[in-house]
């Protein structure tokens, strides 16, 4: 058959693209993804969007209910807390600590974890064995407990909480990458590339990496939801973000004593946290199903 386009080339989508095609068809997953994108936009724009400073106190509007209730005032859309601070501003600035910060933490720890995991996956001698056994044990300790151990040594505070969560997430990335590399290594296409004389570096970046990217992206979503939960939990316990700084977890812990007086100060940050984590989990779960679908075909 005559080919009208001289430069026609068969387009082979990468594994990640294939997963994306399947992911795109899922309504709930796409909805959750758009929620996350909107959340990210709001988070990044929050310093511009806030109507008041999050620390400014309005002495004439203490514990004001949200604007959609009878006593509400449209000046304070989400109401005010017990010190008369605007809830909307606090929640917007809080998203920087509750969403943008975990995102950064996950990016940093994934960089380290994936690098070490790839090294451990390629190197299959004694070191690999030992690392494997050590990590199998470390992984039985959940990341929150690990973060708590590190906090116990370093002492409470936002900086220490960031270090603790970053360190506690690294083992999972190492484990997932190592296992993924290890299982790909035994497949025929890798053997073929090795017979072709590819160097280890080429093998890693051009042959194996594209095939394990979907699994790594899924691990990223898992780690992100864990990181958000952990930083909120640490702040809730008073070990993370400290008092005047608004963060959803620490706002919740503040509301613990006044829940019967101003329930909105507890419900609103909680809903924000819940929506964020649910969206991430829905995206992660759909990714898992898309990957499985691709494997089955």
């Amino acid at each position: 058959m005559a080919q009208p386009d001289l430069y026609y080339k068969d387009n082979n989508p990468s594994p990640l693209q294939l997963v994306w095609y399947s992911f795109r068809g899922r309504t709930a997953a796409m909805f959750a993804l758009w929620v996350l994108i909107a959340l990210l936009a709001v988070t990044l724009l929050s310093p511009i969007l806030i109507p008041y400073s999050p620390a400014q106190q309005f002495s004439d509007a203490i514990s004001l209910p949200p604007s959609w209730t009878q006593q509400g005032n449209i000046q304070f859309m989400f109401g005010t807390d017990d010190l008369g601070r605007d809830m909307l501003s606090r929640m917007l600035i809080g998203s920087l600590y509750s969403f943008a910060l975990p995102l950064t933490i996950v990016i940093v720890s994934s960089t380290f974890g994936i690098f070490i995991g790839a090294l451990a996956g390629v190197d299959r001698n004694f070191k690999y064995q030992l690392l494997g056994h050590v990590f199998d044990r470390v992984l039985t300790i959940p990341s929150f407990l690990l973060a708590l151990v590190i906090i116990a040594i370093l002492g409470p505070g936002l900086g220490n909480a960031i270090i603790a969560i970053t360190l506690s997430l690294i083992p999972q990335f190492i484990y997932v990458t190592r296992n993924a590399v290890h299982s790909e290594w035994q497949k025929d296409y890798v053997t073929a590339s090795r017979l072709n004389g590819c160097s280890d570096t080429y093998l890693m970046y051009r042959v194996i990496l594209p095939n394990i990217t979907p699994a790594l992206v899924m691990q990223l979503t898992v780690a992100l939801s864990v990181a958000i939960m952990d930083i909120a939990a640490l702040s809730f316990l008073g070990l993370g973000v400290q008092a005047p700084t608004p963060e959803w977890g620490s706002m919740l812990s503040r509301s613990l004593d006044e829940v019967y007086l101003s329930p909105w100060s507890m419900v609103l940050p909680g809903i924000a946290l819940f929506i964020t984590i649910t969206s991430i989990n829905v995206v992660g779960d759909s990714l898992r199903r898309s990957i499985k679908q691709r494997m089955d075909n």
Partner: protein
Amino acid sequence: MTRFLINRLLYLVLAIWLLTIFSFCLNWLFPGDVITNMSGIRPLSPNYDMAFQLRGGDSNLFIQYSYYLQNLINFDWGVSLVSQKPVWAEATRTFMATFEILLLGLLLALLTGLPLGALAAARYKSPVDKVIISTAIGGYSIPVFWLAQLLILLFAVKIPWLPITGQIDPLYLIEPKTGSILIDVMLSQSEHKTDALYNALAHMVLPVVVLASLPSMLLLRMMRNTTVEVMQKPYVKAVRARGLSPFRVVTRHAVPNAIQGIIQQLTFIFGLMLANSVIVESIFNWPGIGSWLLKAIIERDYPVIQAALLILVATTLVVNFIFDIYRGWRFPIVREERYGTA
């Protein structure tokens, strides 16, 4: 089996030994005097010289470590820097209190998560399955502390049914002996034993439910996924072809085979519950090991931090060992994978 047991036991001992070394190193990582960090006795106290001798203060690190190990095994874990009470007695009491709600929570999670998961798998891709599975995704996205607050708002503030703080009403005058409140009530000589028992149970409801919610959702999802996978296996098809009722196929053939994968995950779930118990205990003022550790971290009470961390991590390791052994004993295929022989 013996070989499997010895292998696992060796790993457990090795891990715990590494843990004691780590915990020994903590004394140097913490600021301040090493002997004070170990024993909780301040340098100005008259007992300091004795503690210094007892812990080999002027010998080298190896000798100090051997003294440390000796004290650890003799349950001489020093005293708390804040209250000056012996750490070991406090540790056992708080551990029992935590273990009580952990065990009940795990039981509740298993009793709710597994049947619902099997039900969802039996009705795979039907509305029932979809409802159950979307509830599960929502359910494990709820932060534990928020769920606790919502339940407090609902069951203690709006409808005052349940108490929200402590183990038991202090008016019952129950002496804390073992730490586990149910055992304490049983042991006590109080005249109102049954009332006290009901009161203790009422105090327990909210912490246990909150603690069980996340693991139960996780178990539900795992159970559904593994059962669905098992249902596609040829032997299930064969059983179905023989004309067994769908109920029997699920309960007698699919579920027992799916359980094996679940038991592997139970260690992880237990660890998760242990971590969450820190949060739950601090919300409900449960005098367990989590709230004890939290208080110690805020007060910088080093002997207590050390003991609590040691116990928490050792517990996860031991539980991991127990589930591993059970799996190896109950499902020979696990042993076969490792050694090629049952």
